[in-house]
């Protein structure tokens, strides 16, 4: 075999492995989203809950429009954070009912793929929540979107970070008896940087403060990369423990 062919062979194998990994991530994400679509947790519980929180925040701030406009980015992402807790709890529960998670273990699938698929499904759900909340704050709080591209990119980066950190911590608490109460205690401090960065980015996108939103998007992307890497490495041992 020529030297050139020998050099290409590992690249070919790596490309094949990446394709298989991507296929498995898609398989698990599609599975979780199909289950969510049937169970209607996001549509029937998370979205109405999130909208209700927005309305109640409005009451709490005495429907004071200038105050609401200023607080809109933070209120929006606090609401997405609450939705994250519910979505991750549901993602964990899906694997524990009737020992379903054993299927993933026995399939021999790479744990990184299982993690990626579950995180992707949570991210899609959170993105749907953010997509409903954004028009919600425009309608309820009178917010104005000055930079839609920044709002969209910040939402993508923030929901991906929340989903990655949430799925990782969901696996950490999966074997804990009181995981439903332990998860928020662990998750909320860990994702505080996402809340801060997404809020700052949205302050720029909604024009409520003079900040450089794109630099905060960079922080969101960094947070996401770190948590995806941690999840890809740690998910296997955590699945074994659960």
């Amino acid at each position, binding site marked *: 075999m020529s030297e050139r062919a020998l050099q290409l062979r590992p690249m070919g194998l790596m490309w094949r492995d990446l394709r298989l990994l991507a296929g*498995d991530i898609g*398989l*698990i994400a599609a*599975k979780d989203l*199909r*289950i969510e679509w*049937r*169970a209607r947790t996001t549509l029937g519980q998370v979205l109405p809950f999130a909208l209700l929180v927005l309305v109640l925040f409005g009451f709490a701030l005495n429907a004071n429009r200038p105050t609401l406009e200023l607080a809109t980015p933070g209120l929006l992402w606090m609401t997405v954070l609450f939705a994250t807790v519910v979505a991750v709890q549901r993602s964990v529960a*899906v694997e524990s*009912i*009737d*020992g*379903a*998670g*054993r*299927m*993933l*273990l*026995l*399939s*021999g*699938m790479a744990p990184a793929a299982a993690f990626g698929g579950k995180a992707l499904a949570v991210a899609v759900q959170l993105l749907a929540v953010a997509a409903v909340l954004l028009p919600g704050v425009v309608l309820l709080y009178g917010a104005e979107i000055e930079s839609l591209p920044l709002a969209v990119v910040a939402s993508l980066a923030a929901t991906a970070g929340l989903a990655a950190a949430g799925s990782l911590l969901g696996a950490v608490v999966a074997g804990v008896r009181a995981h439903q109460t332990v998860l928020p205690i662990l998750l909320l401090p860990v994702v505080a940087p996402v809340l801060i960065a997404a809020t700052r980015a949205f302050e720029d996108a909604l024009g409520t403060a003079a900040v450089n939103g794109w630099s905060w998007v960079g922080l969101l992307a960094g947070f996401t990369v770190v948590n995806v890497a941690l999840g890809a490495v740690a998910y296997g041992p955590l699945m*074994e423990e659960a």
Partner: protein
Amino acid sequence: MSAVRLEGAVVLLGRFPALAGADLSVDPGEVVLVRGPNGAGKSTLLHLCAGLLPLTEGRGEVLGCDLGADRAAVRRRVGLLGHDTALYSELSPAENLDLWARASRVDTTGVPGALGRLGVPERLWAVPSTRLSAGQRRRVALAAIVVRRPELWLLDEPHAGLDTDGRELVSDLMSEAASAGAAVVLASHETGPADDLATRTVTMAGGTVGADAV
């Protein structure tokens, strides 16, 4: 080469030794019935052989894979039926088996045949599994094993919750698997159809495997 070879296998669940020095050897084509009272360690033995539990002490080899070194390597080659069905409730039997096959890199064209073989009526193939009876879910869980055609069948109380037809079907499946060269280990604490099927019976008590009963 033995399909299963355990020597002084110890498995700790927390600090409790669920297996306390178990010895077992199973050859391909054998149907070994593991008998014993509740808490004897039968389920732990099956989970160890499936590579789902770590070996704390002793030696263990399943299908040529060293359980102490890389227990994950054996998982794709075994089929395990536990007390639970390992099915996603919101997915239909066909969707569960399709997912199972794709995740295991097995041909999905065998899914309808497996469901038919286990006597799951076609009208139930697209119904969410949560709406099936316990016996029907058990049949679907067995169909998932059939789809994978494992080299080692690990069945925990496989006849439980099944009607007479279902019990006969399970017995036929095990016989066919053994005839095809697979090893079958089934755990049961009651006398019944498993006795006629087994080529060998071993008894467990207190986390150890006793002398062969047959």
